[in-house]
């Protein structure tokens, strides 16, 4: 009683002197450009909405740079309270017990109302531990979809309102497009690793590793050399040879988007969050949207796709007031209004069902056809052990290996089977090192 009184008295004094005793927390993020501006708007709105806490967002560069600087800061004991980490850093963050403060734990410790069931299972599944506890706060999650050029489809004598469904369709449509001279190439893609290997596997309900794709423990091994993956990479190499497919470069595939914008390639697979960029750059043609293609002869396909993007992790080593601030801010972030706004602006998935419902109520999806392809695709079926995501340590480097082996395949140095065997062998070596360093 006395404490409550003294606190409110303090608050009164503080407000009278106009220098409020706010708890300030740092949030390091990797959202540049328009996304960064939007993020700062969201934070500013939060800071204006209440007077107890203040969130200070800082742009730290790319995802890899943000994660590295947070880790370096942690080693120097100068870590921010909240840091945005991309999905492939998840394995590293999860293994760092003692460095991260699990979100479910923080919400409980600070008495913040928190219902994990409100979030989309496909999103949350990626970030929960084996006991079903949410370790980080989903913020910007996306999934790859197919964009296509309606004008080129029409010129080639295809129905501009029908997206290809299967890879067989993609091949047949591409042949028609190239023969008719409507475009020089059938399709291109960003993110070979994420789209044409990880999502390909989930979409066909194929494992990419043992122990439920690494969810079951640090001793998991990569197994990306299954028949479906080998067949697909074989096809990609073949299609690259015949011009059906054009390679857009390693990592995110920087050269892929210009090929689609310049109408060189008729189809383009990339993150649903590329939507804003596609709409802004596709000035001379209409864009259609579709789900990722699948192989018609694979049983269980299409399953559901998996996410990419980033979540917010809370780091240890701060005062309890700061965690209260973080918990309060997380509640604000996942509120339907904020989520729906962020999702509609950016093309990232709405992370809660409530945000999705709000968008439906607002009539957003009817006004913007194709904007709900991603969410339909990711919730197509209940996730299986093969399609809830992946969790491997050192995965940033493993992604690099996937790119390298794919390049070796396209250069004709190795065949698809060897390339994927190599990914497994080299990746497993990194996984063993990670296991050794974290045991």
């Amino acid at each position, binding site marked *: 009683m006395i404490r409550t009184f003294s606190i409110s008295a303090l608050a009164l004094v503080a407000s009278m002197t106009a220098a409020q005793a706010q708890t300030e927390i740092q949030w390091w993020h990797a959202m540049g450009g328009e996304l960064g501006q939007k993020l700062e708007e969201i934070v500013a709105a939060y800071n204006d909405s209440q007077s107890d806490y203040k969130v200070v967002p800082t742009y730290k560069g790319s995802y*890899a740079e943000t994660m*590295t600087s947070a880790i370096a800061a942690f080693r120097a004991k100068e870590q921010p309270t909240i840091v945005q980490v991309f999905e492939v850093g998840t394995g590293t963050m999860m293994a760092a017990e003692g460095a991260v403060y699990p979100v479910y734990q923080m919400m409980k410790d600070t008495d913040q109302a928190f219902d994990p069931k409100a979030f989309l299972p496909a999103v949350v599944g990626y970030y929960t531990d084996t006991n079903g506890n949410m370790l980080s706060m989903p913020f910007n999650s996306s999934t790859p979809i197919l964009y296509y050029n309606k004008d080129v489809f029409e010129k080639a004598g295809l129905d501009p309102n029908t997206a290809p469904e299967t890879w067989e369709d993609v091949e047949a449509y591409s042949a028609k497009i190239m023969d008719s001279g409507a475009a020089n190439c059938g399709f291109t893609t960003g993110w070979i690793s994420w789209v044409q290997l990880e999502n390909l596997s989930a979409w066909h309900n194929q494992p990419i590793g043992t122990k439920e794709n690494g969810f079951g423990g640090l001793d998991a091994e990569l197994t990306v050399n299954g028949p479906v993956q080998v067949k697909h990479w074989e096809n990609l190499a073949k299609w690259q040879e015949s011009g059906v497919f054009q390679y857009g470069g*390693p*990592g995110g595939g920087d*050269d892929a988007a210009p090929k689609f914008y310049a109408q060189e390639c008729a189809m383009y697979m990339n993150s649903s969050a590329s939507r804003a960029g596609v709409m802004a750059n596709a000035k001379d043609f209409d864009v259609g949207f579709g789900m990722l293609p699948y192989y018609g002869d694979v049983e269980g396909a299409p399953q559901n796709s998996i996410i990419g993007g980033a979540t917010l992790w809370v780091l240890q080593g701060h005062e309890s007031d700061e965690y209260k601030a973080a918990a309060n801010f997380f509640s604000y972030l996942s509120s339907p209004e904020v989520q729906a706004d962020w999702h509609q602006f950016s093309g990232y998935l709405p992370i809660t069902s409530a945000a999705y419902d709000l968008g439906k109520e607002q009539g957003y999806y009817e006004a913007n056809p194709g904007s709900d392809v991603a969410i339909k695709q990711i919730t197509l079926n209940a996730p299986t052990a093969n399609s809830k995501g992946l969790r491997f340590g050192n995965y940033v480097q493993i992604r*690099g290996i996937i790119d*390298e082996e794919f390049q*070796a395949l396209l250069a004709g140095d190795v065949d698809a089977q060897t390339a994927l065997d190599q990914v497994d062998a080299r990746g497993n070596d990194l996984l063993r090192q990670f296991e050794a*360093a974290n045991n």
Partner: protein
Amino acid sequence: MQNKRAIFGAKGLPYLLLAPQLIITAIFFLWPAGQAIWQSFLREDAFGIKTTFVALENYSRLFADPSYLNALKVTVVFALSTAALSMGVALVLALAVDRTLRSARIYSTLLIWPYAVAPAVAGVLWWFMFNPTIGILPYLLKGVGYGWNHALDRGDAMTLVVISAAWKQISYNFLFFVAGLQAIPASLREAAAIDGAGPVRRFWTITLPLLSPTTFFLLVVTIVYTMFDTFGVIDAITEGGPAQSTNILVYKVYQDGFVGLNLGSSAAQSVVLMGIVIVLTVIQFRFVERRVNY
């Protein structure tokens, strides 16, 4: 040599005068270098929570790793090609300037310009010109029947990074070559000319041997440049790809340490690099100091 030595009366004064430089060296070189050496004996998770002393395991793993051996090979090819290209072109340009009289200054100024360009900017410039999708040069090359694609072709990628790295270093080499050429007494060449030696013969028998101290100095400097200062070029153009064909040692240190967060291995790699530089520096001083009269 004797006249270079300064005479100080008090013993303390020279140390005092040296102190600022020594402190800076200790803080910014010796301390971090020592930390790198210590780190190279450890295996640690990214956050530094669990640390194990593994003695030389990071090193043995390194030299058993095909990708590290590949990086060594790539570095040698890259360093030698860049040195050959940048020094060859610089020498030709310097000879040309040495022969012209009136316009030499303008040429020199223009040729020195690229040196002021930051490596990353130079990288982006070349990347843009050679971009397989939107670049002008692949478009022209297609006209003569060559399909340029440095995103896939190892040879193309190496050629491109060598050109961009050399382009920047030409200016520096050019300056030294011009200075070196001007230091060669004209009477020597004139005497040879009177004896009937043609320009080509004069170059090979008089100019080049007299330039050799400059050439050797530049060779060492350029190789050190290609090994350390070309990070920006590689990062902006190829990021070490395709399939590690342009992944030079210093870029691999960054990749493994800052992207991959494998600090032990990264530290071991930087210690190896430090060893290479020390060797190069020793060679330079041993060899150059003995041969050159300043």
